[in-house]
C-alpha cells in the first residue's frame, strides 16, 4: 500500500480509480497491485526511476494493454490518451489529422470540434500545415488535442514534454493546466521532477512496479523529514525517499 493518502479514501469523488493493477511480462512482474485515484480537474503526476512501470500503468489505464489483475473505473473510450511520441500522420495537415480522429471518435460535429481544438491549441493559423512541418512543441499540442477530441473527462499523458525545449514545455503545460482548470482530470507520467512538483497537485511514486507514495509533493518532503532525511528541494526529497526504501 502506498504511503500518503490512500486511493480508497478519495474514491468517492474520484474521476478515475484504478485498484490492484498487476501486469506480468513472462516471469517479470512489471506492476504489483498498483492503485491510484484522481479527482475531477486534478493534475496527478506519476514519477519514478526508469523501468518503474509508469508507461505500463498508463497503457493499462488507457486500454492499450490488458492488466493481469485489477480494475479501472472507466472504459478506454471514456479516457483521453496522449502517447509519449506524437501519434499523428506527418503527411496530413493539422486540421486533417484532427478531422480524421474526430470522425473515428464518432464526434457529433467533427468540423466544429476541429475548429474548437485548433482554437484551444492556438494552432488555427497552422491548420493547413503538414504535421511533419511542425515543431516538436506544436506536434505535441496537436497530439494532446487529438487526445481531447472525444471530450473525455480524464486525460492521460505519457511524458508529454519529453524531448521539448523549455519554451515549448512551458507552452504545453500552460495548455494542459488550462484543461485541468476547466475540470479535466489530468494524469501524466514524467521524468522531470521539477515539473511534477510545479504542476501536480498529487504525485504517485512508482518503483519496481510498486506504488510507494501517493500524496502532494509537499507531503513527500514531510515523509522524508519524518524518516530523518534532509532535502532542499523536491528532487532531493524524491531521491532520499527512494534510497530509504532500498531503491
Amino acid at each position, binding site marked *: 500500500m502506498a504511503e500518503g493518502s490512500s486511493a480508497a479514501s478519495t474514491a468517492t469523488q474520484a474521476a478515475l480509480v484504478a485498484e490492484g493493477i498487476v501486469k506480468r511480462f513472462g516471469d517479470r512482474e512489471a506492476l504489483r497491485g498498483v492503485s491510484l485515484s484522481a479527482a475531477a480537474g486534478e493534475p496527478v503526476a506519476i514519477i519514478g526511476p526508469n523501468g518503474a512501470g509508469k508507461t505500463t500503468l498508463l497503457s493499462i489505464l488507457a486500454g492499450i494493454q490488458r492488466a493481469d489483475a485489477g480494475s479501472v473505473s472507466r472504459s*478506454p473510450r471514456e479516457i483521453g490518451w496522449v502517447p509519449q511520441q506524437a501519434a499523428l500522420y506527418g503527411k496530413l495537415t493539422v486540421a486533417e489529422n484532427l478531422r480524421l480522429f474526430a470522425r473515428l471518435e464518432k464526434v457529433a460535429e467533427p468540423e466544429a470540434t476541429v475548429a474548437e481544438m485548433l482554437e484551444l491549441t492556438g494552432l488555427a493559423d497552422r491548420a493547413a500545415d503538414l504535421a511533419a512541418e511542425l515543431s516538436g512543441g506544436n506536434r505535441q499540442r496537436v497530439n494532446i488535442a*487529438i487526445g481531447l477530441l472525444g471530450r473525455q473527462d480524464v486525460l492521460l499523458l505519457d511524458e508529454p514534454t519529453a524531448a521539448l525545449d523549455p519554451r515549448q514545455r512551458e507552452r504545453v503545460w500552460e495548455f494542459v493546466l488550462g484543461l485541468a482548470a476547466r475540470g479535466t482530470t489530468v494524469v501524466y507520467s514524467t521524468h522531470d521532477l521539477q515539473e511534477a512538483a510545479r504542476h501536480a497537485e498529487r504525485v504517485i511514486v512508482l518503483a519496481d512496479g510498486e506504488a510507494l507514495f501517493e500524496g502532494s509533493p509537499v507531503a513527500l518532503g514531510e515523509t522524508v523529514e519524518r524518516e530523518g532525511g534532509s532535502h532542499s528541494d523536491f528532487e532531493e526529497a524524491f531521491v532520499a525517499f527512494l534510497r530509504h526504501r532500498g531503491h
Partner: protein
Amino acid sequence: MRWLLLKDLRILRRSPGLVALLILYPVVLSVLIGFALSAGPDKPKVAFVSLVPPERGELELGNRKLDLSSYEGTLFDAIDPVPVDCDGKSSLQCRQAAIDKVESGAAIAALVIPEDFTDRLGGLQTLALSGPPTIEVLYNADDPVKAAYVEDTIKAELRDANLALTTQFTEIGLSYLDLIVSGGTVDVPVLRDVELLGLKRAEEIVERARRDVPPARRAELDRVIRFSELARENLDLSGPLLRSLREPIRIEQEALDGGSTSLSSFAVALAVAVSLMFITLLLAAGALALEREENAFARLVRGLVSRTGLLVEKAGLAAICSLAICLLMLVGLGLFVDLDWARAPLWVVALTVATAAFGALGVAVGAVTREVRAASLLCVMLSLPLAFLALVPSGSVAPALYDVTRAISALFPFRPTLDALDAALNDSGGLAAPLAHLAALALAFGALARLALRRFA
C-alpha cells in the same frame, strides 16, 4: 474504416515519388522478365570473311550453278554479319582482321570461309578425295555463358546450312540415278553433252535382240534382262531412301501437361503476376507498418478501430490499388499482345482473389515489422526468391528437390496467382482450383497477421 481508407489514399496521393516507385519498379521489372522470357536472342554479330576469290565463287552442283555470295546470304541469314575490310590484304591478314573484330568486341565470333571452299564443295560430287570443305569459327571464350551461346548459335546455323547442302546433293544424286535408270543427256566437261542410254532403254534393246537370237542362247540374254529389271526396281527405291537421309527422324510433339499458352501470353500472365505481387505486398505491409511508425497504431486500436478491421482496411487498400494498376497494365499489354477481351471478367475475378491473398500476406509482413523500410525490405526479400522458386520447371532439378520447390511454392500466393492469371487470360486450365488455393492462403495469412498483430504490436 472508411475514413482510414481515405486517409491512406490521401497519404499516397501526397507521396508521388513513393507511388511512382511502387508502380514503376514492379511494372518495369515484370515487363523485363516477360520480355526476357518471350523474346528470342538477337542475331549475333559475326565477322564474316570469305577468302574464296571472286572468280571461284561460283560452283556447279549437278546441272545447277550455285553462287557463293547468294549462298552466304541464305546460309547465314540468322547472323548479323560484321563487314571485314580485306581490300589489298592477304588471306592471312584478312583472317587476322576478322580476329581483331572479335577481340575488340565488335563481333562475338568470326566465321572464315577458306579459299578452297568451293573447290572442296564441288569435289563432293566427284570422286576427288580432297575431303569436305571446312569453315573456321573463331570466338572469344572469356565468358562461359557467351561462349556457350556462340557455340550453340553457330552450330545451329551450320547444321541448317549442312541440311540445305544435303538436300542439294541428294537431288544431284537422284538426278544421276534417274539418268542411269531412264537415260538422258549429261553435260560432261570437255565432251559437253553426252547421251546416256539408261537401264530402261538398254532393256528394251536387249528385248528386241532376244527375238533374233537362237532359243539356245536366249537364257543368257534373259539373265541380262532380269538384271536390268532388278537394278531398275531397286534404283527406283533409292529415291525415297536418299530423301529420307535429309531428315531421318521426324519429330511429332504433344504436350502432356499444361495448356496451349503461347510464350508471349504466358509472359503477360507472368508480368502481371509479378507486378501484382510487388504492389500488393509493399502497399499492404507498408501501410500497416506506417501506423506503427507514426505511433498511431496504439491510438487507433484502443477502441477507434478493431485490429481485424485495421488488417482488412490495409489489405483492402492494397488490393484496390493493385487491382486498378494490374487491369490498366493488362489493357496496355493488350495493345501489343493478342488477348481475348471476352475473358476480361475472368481477369477481374483472378486479380481480385490474388490481390486478397497477397494483401493478407502483406499485412502479415506489416504486422511483424515496426517501420515501413523494414516492411518493404522484408517483402522484397521474401517475394523475389519465392517467385523464382515457383518458376523452376520440372526436370531441371532432382525430383525430390522439385517436390520441395512445389511444396514451398504452394504455401505462397505467387504460383496459384500465375496459374489463375494464365487460366483467366489464356484458358490454359481450370480457374477454380487456383482461386480456391488463393482463397485458402488469404484466410491463412489473414489469421497469421491477426496473431502477429497481437504478439508484436
